[in-house]
């Protein structure tokens, strides 16, 4: 039996940590006597932005991390959130293979699974807007949203996660970008008035295995991981239901929706995609076009 050390870039028990925790549970059950994952924990065990590097160097064997946390090692990772195809489609059309080669080459990591498919990002606001224009609004961003919101004229600020609640309450920021799932983990719903629909991009939370470890596993051990990866990826289909529940919960917490339709919806989504791909082109000029053709239409 081989034991892999696993860490999570997300706080244990929160929305984007759970699929990996379920994955570990199933591997440890199905792989009894063959393979076991020792779950060391979340950010207290590894700074989120170091999980990618730790998988690369073998300090951990398997990690759960969003691409936004390892773009420093692999700029092409910026494109993962821009995918419009599901991971199952990506496995069929060669996108997964191309991305796996990049992961192996840039960060010595086997791209085992992608969760978060079908979970869009949204703009959350405390001031209403009536068209896709953010001029005059101060928005808290992470690198995921920077290019898009900047293109729409927003005034961008970075705020430490622990300060966002206070910043919202005091009006230091007028809004923030976040996935449709997860704001309840942070308590931000208490200080948020609007969610802008539709969502844009989609969350990618990836399970990566150190490639040296991957190569050393026996075929049976790899089969357990691959089968469980397929299982956890199939569960991405559950996200639609989880999203709907989350939206109900947000409504119950008093969040109103600002919905763009027709031409405005087109403009909103196009601005998001173009800003995202323009940034990929800027930081990964060689592979940007190929990635776009594989991941999006």
């Amino acid at each position: 039996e081989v034991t892999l050390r696993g860490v999570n870039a997300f706080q244990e028990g929160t929305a984007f940590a759970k699929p990996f925790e379920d994955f570990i549970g199933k591997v440890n059950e199905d792989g009894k006597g063959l393979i076991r994952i020792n779950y060391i924990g979340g950010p207290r065990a590894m700074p989120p932005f170091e999980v990618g590097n730790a998988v690369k160097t073998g300090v951990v064997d398997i990690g759960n991390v969003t691409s936004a946390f390892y773009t420093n090692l692999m700029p092409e990772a910026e494109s993962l959130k821009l995918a419009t195809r599901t991971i199952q489609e990506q496995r069929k059309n060669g996108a997964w293979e191309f991305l796996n080669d990049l992961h192996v080459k840039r960060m010595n990591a086997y791209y085992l699974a992608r969760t978060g498919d079908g979970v869009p990002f949204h703009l959350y606001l405390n001031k209403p807007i009536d068209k896709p224009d953010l001029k005059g609004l101060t928005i808290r961003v992470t690198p995921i949203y920077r290019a898009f919101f900047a293109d729409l004229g927003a005034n961008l600020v970075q705020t430490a996660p622990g300060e966002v609640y206070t910043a919202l309450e005091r009006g230091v920021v007028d809004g923030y970008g976040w996935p449709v799932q997860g704001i309840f983990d942070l308590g931000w719903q208490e200080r948020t008035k609007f969610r802008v629909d539709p969502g844009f991009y989609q969350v990618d939370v990836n399970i990566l295995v150190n490639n040296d470890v991957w190569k050393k596993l026996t075929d049976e051990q790899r089969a357990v991981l691959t089968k469980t990866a397929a299982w956890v990826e199939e569960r991405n289909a559950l996200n639609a239901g989880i999203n709907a529940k989350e939206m109900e919960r947000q409504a119950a917490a008093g969040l109103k929706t600002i919905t763009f339709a027709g031409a405005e919806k087109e403009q909103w989504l196009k601005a998001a995609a173009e800003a995202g791909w323009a940034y990929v082109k800027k930081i990964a000029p060689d592979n940007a076009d190929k990635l776009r053709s594989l991941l999006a239409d």
Partner: protein
Amino acid sequence: MRAYALILDAFGLLAGLGYATAAAVTAIDVVLRNSGGDSIRGLVDLIEYGLFASTFLAAPWVLYKSAHVRVDFVVDALPRAARGAAGLLTNLAGLGIALVMLYYSVRVTLQAREQGYLVLKSVVFPEWWALAVIPVASAMLAVEFGRRLFAAAQPGGRAEL
């Protein structure tokens, strides 16, 4: 020796000036934002990396000034000879720690450089620019621990920390 002290002092003063500048620019940023203007681009990143660089680069100066907090009540209670031995041991340990940090920080910096790691924040720059601060600081720490060790080994010298 005077030049050495001057260089270390300069890093201390630089750290202090850095804090004062950060305060002034952040205050301007607050005023700008609350009067409807834009935030200063990249200010948060600049402060974060400034905090990192100033801490590492001024740490050897703090060591030189014997201002790193330490638990001294046990050592102070020891007889003179034992106190000297403890001083030698701790300076030797410090030198070892600084050399380990130097070796691995050089490796990490070179790796980041060779592989082209980027910091992708509101400004984009090679990660090794930031990492390179650590080997510089570690080398200065090693020199300072070495100086203390040497001073303590002189006849009549005192192993201070």
